[in-house]
């Protein structure tokens, strides 16, 4: 019973998160300016992190938690560096 509930709800959540990633990818391809692309990259990172957490619940191991943490840290760093690059034209001054 509970396995069935978890299976269907987690599959549905993964589908919704994949749709969200598709929406962010659409904005990244279409986005008229560079800041739109950086914004959709940031939301892609967040969605990938949440997808990793859902995958961790689904498989029942805590290994995916560490992957999600690393994806979050990389997303923060890359968005910060790209925003700095858009403002100044270089990352480290």
């Amino acid at each position, binding site marked *: 019973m509970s396995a069935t509930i978890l299976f269907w709800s987690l599959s549905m959540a993964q589908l919704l998160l994949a749709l969200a990633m598709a929406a962010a990818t659409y904005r990244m391809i279409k986005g008229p300016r560079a800041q739109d692309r950086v914004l959709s990259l940031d939301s892609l990172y967040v969605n990938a992190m949440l997808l990793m957490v*859902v995958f961790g619940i689904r498989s029942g191991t805590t290994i995916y938690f560490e992957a999600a943490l690393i994806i*979050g840290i990389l997303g923060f760093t890359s968005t910060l560096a790209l*925003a*700095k690059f858009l*403002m100044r034209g270089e990352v480290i001054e």
Partner: protein
Amino acid sequence: MIADADLPVWAAVLVAVLVLTGALLTLIGCLGLVRLNDFYQRIHAPTLGSSAGTLLILFGSVLYFSVTQKRPAVHEALIFIFVSVTTPVTLMLLARAALYRDRAENNRQVPPPPDEASVEKTD
């Protein structure tokens, strides 16, 4: 695919509701990223996923691992603290970069920079 099915039904229903609501909120945020018209409107949309969506999905994960391992598993709080601290920093920096670029191109749709007198008055 589901590793251990010895979860009680109430916990399974609660985890399902939390994770589905979080994923739905994240999807709504990313649809706002597609549908809104201006960059300064669009930058508000995906924060729905990085605040409420992250909170709900991580709470579902905390509940699942606390029930299956029969001890409090709160390590997911690390992710929530990290994301909720860093998202405002990066998005405010990104909005300031976009404002700088729009002003450098003399875009009429953004407010002009504050003039020198008011800047000196506030200092």
